């Protein structure tokens, strides 16, 4: 199993901050989600981090056992 993490407004859209998914290629995992959510996760302003490290290219990512993939919409601190 692997984990998806939804930050900011993506948590509202997903209805949860965190979701367990079967390990495997990210594109398969996304294809199994609610399409309305998947579209948001793939939005051009959403960045992704694998185990706390920002991905510069999501192509070909495969989630292994215990991996955590976070979806990061535009930030707003301070």
């Amino acid at each position, binding site marked *: 199993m692997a984990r998806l*993490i939804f*930050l*900011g*407004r993506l*948590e*509202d859209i997903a209805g949860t901050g965190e979701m367990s998914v079967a390990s495997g290629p990210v594109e398969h995992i996304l294809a199994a989600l609610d399409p309305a959510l998947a579209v948001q996760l793939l939005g051009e302003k959403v960045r992704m*981090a694998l*185990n*706390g490290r*920002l991905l510069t290219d999501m192509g070909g990512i495969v989630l292994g056992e215990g991996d*955590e993939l*976070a979806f*990061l*919409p*535009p*930030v*707003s*601190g*301070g």
Partner: protein
Amino acid sequence: MADVRLAESALDPVAEIAAFNARYPTSGGIVTFLGQVREGGGVEALELKHYGPMTLPGMVELARITQARWPLEGLLIVHRSGIMCPGDPIVLVAAAARHRRDAFEAADFAMDHLKSESWFWKREKTANGWRWIEPREQDHDDLERWR
């Protein structure tokens, strides 16, 4: 020496500033920035979410970059997460330097980056419910000044 913290509960800016000032008697200038939840304007609460594996490490890296760019004697960055009420402090940055311009610029730089390049997500609650806050155009312009 940077002091960088993510505060999950109330932050006391006056106590922090008192301790920071006492630590740097050799610094000619100390600049502090306090950001707080505005009273008035209809905001009932503000929530800041963070992401454990990235938020504090990102703040530590920001402190490192700030210290590499200006000759500072001390740097403090404390940022809240969680739910806050109007008037509550959100973020405190303090920079101590021999010369005042270094302290001003370092604090300004750190704030611009905390605002729009750190891993926080902010939403506010009004009579209409919760609403996520997107970064403003101005925040990006502010960042561009440092590139």
